[in-house]
């Protein structure tokens, strides 16, 4: 592997009850997904504030993905329904400001879907790698 090959930084917000356990299952099943994905555990997908997503981009993320329980399966009954509305509007706004819409994604991954978790992450890392570095929404002051 050459030194110059682009390795994206991906932040994955995973809800404690479904997607984080799904990631765990992917691991115990020995499924491969890129090490570029940094998982941040949140109590519920609804915990994720639009500012979190922007902050991740500020600190150098090239892509941000939010994983939660499937709608209807939320541990707190309705949290992911609110997250869904919020993220739809936020992504639409980012697109409106001309930020590449492929850099953000929401996926519903249950605790039993280790395989889906690995597929989703592989696919997302591939998409973001093709897009290249995040230039439009970066904070130069946070670059080393």
């Amino acid at each position, binding site marked *: 592997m050459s030194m110059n090959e682009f390795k994206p930084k991906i932040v994955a917000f995973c809800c404690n009850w479904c997607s984080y356990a799904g990631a765990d299952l992917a691991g115990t099943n020995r499924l491969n997904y890129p090490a570029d994905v940094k998982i941040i555990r949140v109590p519920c997908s609804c915990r994720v504030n639009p500012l979190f997503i922007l902050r991740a*981009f500020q600190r150098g993320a090239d892509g941000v993905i939010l994983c939660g329980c499937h709608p209807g399966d939320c541990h707190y009954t309705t949290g992911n329904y609110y997250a869904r509305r919020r993220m739809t509007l936020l992504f639409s706004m980012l697109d*409106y400001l001309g930020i590449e819409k492929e850099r953000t994604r929401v996926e519903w991954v249950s605790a039993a879907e280790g395989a889906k978790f690995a597929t989703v992450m592989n696919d997302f890392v591939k998409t973001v790698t093709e897009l290249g570095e995040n230039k439009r929404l970066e904070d130069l002051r946070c670059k080393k």
Partner: protein
Amino acid sequence: MQEMMKKRAKELLASGEVTRVIGWKKNEFDYDITPAVFTSAEEIDRDFIYDDFCGVNLSKFTFQHQKNDTKTLVFLKPCDSYSMTQLITEHRVDRNALYIIGVPSYGKIDVEKIKADGVTGILSITSEGGDVHVHTLYGDKTYAKYEVTSERCLNCKSKMHPTYDELIGFEGEVMETERFDEVAKLEAMTPEERFEFWRGELSRCIRCNACRNACPACTCETCIFDNNDSGVAQKAAADSFEENMFHIIRAFHVAGRCTDCGECSRVCPQHIPLHLLNRKFISDINKFYGDYQAGAEIGQRAPLVNFTKEDVEPDIVAKGGKA
């Protein structure tokens, strides 16, 4: 109109029904109008004004100057009335401590449009019928009123007052508007064009926070932008990221609650079209979750604190954004 309002305000003050009056006051220039609290008939006679420059939304001022132990009279234009209804819905003001008089608005003049035409040294401006006469140090000039009417009034969404105790004038109606045309025009551009457009606009931001301070939906006592640890605290705009982030978050915090009164764009000293961000959220909410007008009636549930099981998935944006 102004005389009727003055008369009614003095009557209510004299009868003891209200102890304070919130209205508009003229400053040094004709076009320089500030909100003010009046407590006596003399003050009202001297300073009270209502003309085509009274664009200030009084709901935010009322929120900041409310006193729950006495009753306050406040004059509201249709725009202000929507904002006030939203504030009452959110329990930010006490409806019982307010006496609301709805007044009509026939479109407010945007003095920036006159200044942009190269007019300097303005001594006075008078608006009569359909004409606006500008008297300057270097001579006089006359405009047709529609030429200098502010953008938000040209795209007026409603002449109706959702909340009032009494009306001066008439009860208006919700209007047909083309206010989302600009948003649609931007949506039709390529992402590169949109990015360039918004960089051009937002890079002028000086982080004065006027948009936040004037916004009737921004009523948090401690604002996230005042938190030094937030990373978006007040500072000179040193980086393009922060300008983007500030404006996305500002617009997001009022999404679903913004009544589209246009104060943010009016007060912006850099003339950034901030209403286009808010209107994007409004048009998305209309498109994805059904038509919703914040502040149209007391007790509405805002779309972002509500859901249905059949809501669209966020990937609709990546697919092209059509519901």
